[in-house]
C-alpha cells in the first residue's frame, strides 16, 4: 500500500502549509486580497485531501526527528484541516481579512506540529503557535478585544509554564524528548507521577476541563464570532490531540496497563465534574455565545469519558467525538457569528429567527439537537459509542452520569429552539453564500455520519490502534 504515495509526502504537507503562510503574507501586502484568500482556502482543501490520502494508503514514517506520520495524526490533522477550511470560509468577508488569513495559517502550522508530533518539543511549540496566533488574531480585530486577548494570553502562558515544568521532571530519564523514548525510560518512577499531574493541569487549561475552565466563557463571549469558532472548533481539539498523545504514549506504562489506574481515575473525575459544571451553568445563560461556551465545556467532559476508559474502544470513541464536535460547534458558531454581525446576540433576540431566516433556524436546531444527543444525528452516535466504551471498561457509573447530562442539556437547547420558532414581525435577512456553504458542510457531516457512523468510526478505530494496542 505504501508505494502509492511518494516517501516525502509529509514534507509536501509542510511545504503546502508554508505556502499557505506565505500566501497569507501576500494577502497582507496586496490590494487584491480576495484572490489570495481563495488560493489559501484551496490550499487548505488540498492539505486536507493530502492528509486523507495518506490515511487511506496507510502511510507511516518518521521525519526530521520531530514528526511522525501515522493513522492517528493523519486522521486528526485531515479532519481539523477541514475545520480550518470552514473557519476560513466563514471569515471570508470579515475584516481585517489579511490578519485573519495569516493567523489562521499559523494555527494550521501549530495543528500540524501537534498532530504529527514525534517529539514533545513539537507538541509544545505547536500548542504555543495555536494559542499565540489566536491571541494576535483576536487583537487584530481592534482595541475593544483587548480583554479576551489578554485573558487568553495569560492563561496560555500559565499553561505553557506548567507544561514546561512537567516536561522538566521527565527530562532526567530520557533527553531525546521523543514521546516513545520518555515512555520507555520513565516507566514506574515516582517523579513521573508528579509530572503526570502537572500535565493534567497544563492541558486541562487549554481543553477547558473542570477546575481550569473559568476563562472559557469570557474569552468565547468577548472574541469575535469567527475566532470563537476557531477556539471552540480547533484550539480545543488540538489540546485534546496533545492529551491523547501525552497520556497514551508517554504515560502508557504508567497508568493504563499497569496495576495503577491513576490516569483513568483522574480523567473519571475530570469528566464527571466537567460535564456537570458545563451543563448546570449553561442552564442560566442569557447570551448565546456564553451558552455555547458552557455547552462546549460539557461536551469536552464527554470526550474525557473515552479517555477515562482508556481502552481501544474508548480512544476510538473520543477521536470520533472530537471530530464530530468540531463540525457541530463550527456549524453553530458560523450561524452565531453571522447573526452577531447583524447585532443579534442574546437568546432573547433569537426570538423569531425562523422568520428572519429559516435556513439558519433549522440548521442551528439540527446542530443543537445533535449536541444534545438526539438520534439519528452524529452527537448521539458519538455519545453512544462513548457510553459503550465506559460500559466495556466496567464503568457503568460514568455512562449513567453521561446520560443524565444529556438530559440536562436538552433543557437549554430546547429553550433556544423554542425562541427561534416563535412568530415575530421581523425583517428577513440572508447570510452570505460562504456561511451557507460552511453550515451545509457541517450539516451534511452531522446527518450522514449520524445515520451511518461507521463512515468515521472505522477510521477512528484505525487511528486509535496507533495509541492503544
Amino acid at each position, binding site marked *: 500500500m505504501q508505494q502509492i504515495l511518494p516517501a516525502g509526502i509529509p514534507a509536501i504537507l509542510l511545504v503546502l502549509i508554508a505556502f499557505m503562510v506565505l500566501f497569507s503574507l501576500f494577502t497582507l501586502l496586496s490590494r487584491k486580497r480576495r484572490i489570495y484568500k481563495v488560493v489559501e482556502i484551496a490550499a487548505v482543501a488540498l492539505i486536507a485531501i493530502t492528509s486523507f490520502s495518506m490515511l487511506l494508503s496507510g502511510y507511516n514514517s518518521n521525519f526530521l526527528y520531530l514528526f511522525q506520520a501515522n493513522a492517528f495524526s493523519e486522521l486528526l490533522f485531515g479532519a481539523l484541516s477541514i475545520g480550518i477550511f470552514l473557519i476560513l470560509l466563514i471569515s471570508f468577508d470579515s475584516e481585517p481579512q489579511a490578519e485573519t488569513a495569516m493567523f489562521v495559517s499559523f494555527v494550521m502550522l501549530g495543528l500540524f506540529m501537534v498532530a504529527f508530533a514525534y517529539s514533545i518539543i513539537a507538541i509544545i511549540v505547536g500548542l504555543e503557535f495555536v494559542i499565540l496566533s489566536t491571541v494576535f488574531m483576536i487583537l487584530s480585530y481592534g482595541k475593544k478585544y483587548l480583554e479576551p486577548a489578554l485573558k487568553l494570553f495569560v492563561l496560555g502562558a500559565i499553561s505553557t509554564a506548567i507544561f514546561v515544568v512537567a516536561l522538566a521532571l521527565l527530562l532526567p530519564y530520557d533527553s531525546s524528548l521523543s514521546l516513545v523514548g520518555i515512555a520507555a525510560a520513565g516507566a514506574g518512577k515516582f517523579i513521573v507521577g508528579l509530572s503526570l499531574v502537572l500535565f493534567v493541569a497544563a492541558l486541562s487549561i487549554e481543553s477547558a476541563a473542570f477546575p481550569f475552565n473559568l476563562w472559557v466563557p469570557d474569552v468565547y463571549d468577548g472574541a469575535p464570532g469567527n475566532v470563537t469558532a476557531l477556539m471552540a472548533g480547533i484550539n480545543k481539539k488540538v489540546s485534546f490531540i496533545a492529551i491523547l498523545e501525552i497520556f497514551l504514549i508517554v504515560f502508557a506504562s504508567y497508568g493504563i496497563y499497569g496495576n495503577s489506574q491513576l490516569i483513568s481515575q483522574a480523567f473519571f473525575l475530570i469528566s464527571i465534574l466537567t460535564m456537570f459544571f458545563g451543563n448546570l451553568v449553561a442552564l442560566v445563560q442569557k447570551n448565546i455565545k456564553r451558552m455555547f461556551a458552557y455547552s462546549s465545556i460539557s461536551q469536552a467532559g464527554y470526550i474525557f469519558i473515552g479517555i477515562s476508559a482508556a481502552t481501544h*474502544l474508548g480512544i*476510538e470513541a473520543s477521536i470520533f467525538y472530537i471530530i464530530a464536535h468540531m463540525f457541530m460547534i463550527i456549524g453553530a458558531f458560523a450561524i452565531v457569528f453571522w447573526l452577531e454581525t447583524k447585532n443579534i446576540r442574546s437568546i432573547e433576540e433569537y426570538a423569531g429567527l*425562523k422568520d428572519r431566516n429559516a435556513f439558519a433556524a433549522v440548521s442551528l436546531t439540527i446542530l443543537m*439537537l445533535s449536541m444534545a444527543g*438526539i*438520534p*439519528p444525528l452524529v452527537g*448521539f*452516535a458519538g455519545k*453512544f*459509542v462513548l*457510553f*459503550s466504551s465506559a*460500559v*466495556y471498561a466496567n464503568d*457503568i457509573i460514568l*455512562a*449513567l452520569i453521561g*446520560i*443524565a447530562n*444529556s*438530559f440536562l442539556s*436538552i*433543557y437549554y437547547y*430546547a*429553550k433556544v*429552539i*423554542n425562541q427561534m*420558532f*416563535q412568530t415575530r414581525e421581523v425583517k428577513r435577512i440572508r447570510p452570505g453564500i460562504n456561511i451557507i456553504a460552511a453550515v451545509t458542510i457541517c450539516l451534511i457531516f452531522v446527518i450522514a455520519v449520524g445515520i*451511518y*457512523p*461507521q463512515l468515521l*468510526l472505522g477510521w477512528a*478505530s484505525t487511528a486509535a490502534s496507533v495509541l492503544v494496542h
Partner: protein
Amino acid sequence: MIPLLLMIIVPAAFLAAAAAFKSHPKELSVSSTFIGLILAVYFFLSVMTSGSIAQSYNYIPALNIGFSLNAGSTSMILLLMASIVLFVTAFAGNVNREKERTASLLLLLFQAGVSGLFLSGNFFVFFIFWDIGIIAPFFMINILGSANRRIASYKFILYEIFASALLLAGIILIYFYAPAHTLNIYSLSSLYAQMPLYIQETIFILFFIAFMINIPVFPLHTWLPDAHSEASTQGSMVLSGIVTKFGGFGMILIFATMPVARSFSYYIAILAAFSAFYAAFLTMRQSDLKRVVAHTTIVEMSIVLFAIATMTNIGQSGAVFGMLSHGLVVALMFLSVGAIEHIFHERKIDMLRGISKGAKFTAYAFLVGIFIMTGVPLTSGFIADVLIFIGGASAFGIYGIIPLFSLIILGAFMYLVINKSFFANRRATPAAATIGISQKMGYAVLLAAIFFFGILPFVALNLINSGGVV
C-alpha cells in the same frame, strides 16, 4: 421478500425530496404515507401467512450492534394502525392548509420514526426511532400549534426527553449486564434470567417509568392535555393516535419478555385502574372540546396498561387490540374536533350549540367515535373491551372489571357533551366555513378501518394467537 428497511427508506427519501423542492409538499406526504400503508398491508399479510420476519444489517461492528428489524404480531398490528392514521393525517389533517410545507416535512420525519420504532429488532434501533418520533411531534406543537404552544411543547419535550434518558439508561444497563452485550429485544427474553435480580428490577423500573410517561399514566400524565390540545390537528392526531402507542408497545415488550414483570404487575394494575378513574373524572372538568378528547386518551391508555398488567394472553391481546382501536378512534375524533374548530372558530363546549346542524358529517363522525370509544358492538372498541375485561377477570377475579366503570363514567359525560353541543338546536352556533371532500374521505377511511376490525377481529387476533404478543 421486500426488505423491511423499505418502510424507513421510503419516508426518508420523500423527506429529502420535500426538503429539496419547495412545491407540492402535501402531494409528497400523501404519496409517501400511501406507499407506507401499502407496504404495511403487504408486510401484515406476509407475517400472517408465514410468521414473523427478522432482518439485520451491519451497523456498528465495533460495538456488535446491528441495524436489526423485526416484524412480529404486535408490531405489525400497530404499524398497520399507524400507517392508516398517518395516511389520513396526511391528506385530511390540515384543513386550512396552513404552513403546509413544514407540516408535510414533519409528518414525513414522523413517518420514518414510527416505522422504525414499531419494526425495531434491538433496543438501539428502538431508541433511535423513539427519539425521532418524539422530535417531530415537538415541532408539530411548537411551530404549528395554537396559542399556548410554547409552554405546551416545552413541557412535552422535557417529559419525553426525560423518558428517553431513562430509556437510554435502561438500555445501557442491559448492554452492560447482558451476556455478550446483546441488545436484541427478542433474544433477550431468555437472557434476563442470567442477570442479578436487582439489576433486572432496576431495568424494569427505568423502562416502566419511561413508557409510563409516554403512555401516559397518573401521576406523569400532565404533559398530555396541554400537548394534545395545543398541537395542530395533524399534531393531535399523531400524538394521540401514534405517539402514546410507543409507550404501549414498549410496555408490551417489557411485560412479555422480562420475567421480573410478574412481581410488579399487581401494583401496576392498581395504578392503571386508578389512573383510568382519575382521568375520567378529570375529563368531566374540561370545557374545551379538544382537551376532552385529550383526556379520554389517558383513560383509554390507562385501561390498555391495565390489560397489559393482567399478564394473561387474552388480556394482552386485548391491549394490542385496544391500541389498534384507540389509535384509529382518537384520530377520528381529533380530526372531527379540528373540523369543528375550522367550521365554527370555537372549541368551548359551552359556546358550541347545534353542531349537527352546521356540520352534519363531522358531528356524526364524532358521535360514532364516542360509540366506538365506549365499546358499542360491531366496532373495534367492543372487541378490545371484551378481551381486556375477560383478561382482567381471569387475572384478578371480580375486581378485574372495576376499570370498566371508568369507561362508563367517560361515556356518560361524552353523551352529555353530545347532547349539549351537538344536538341542542336552540341558538345554534353559525357555521363560518365548510369542510372539503378530503376531510370526509378521512372520516370514511378511519371508520372503514374501525368497522373492518370490529366485524372481522380475527384478522388481527389470529396474528397474536399464532405468534404470541411479541
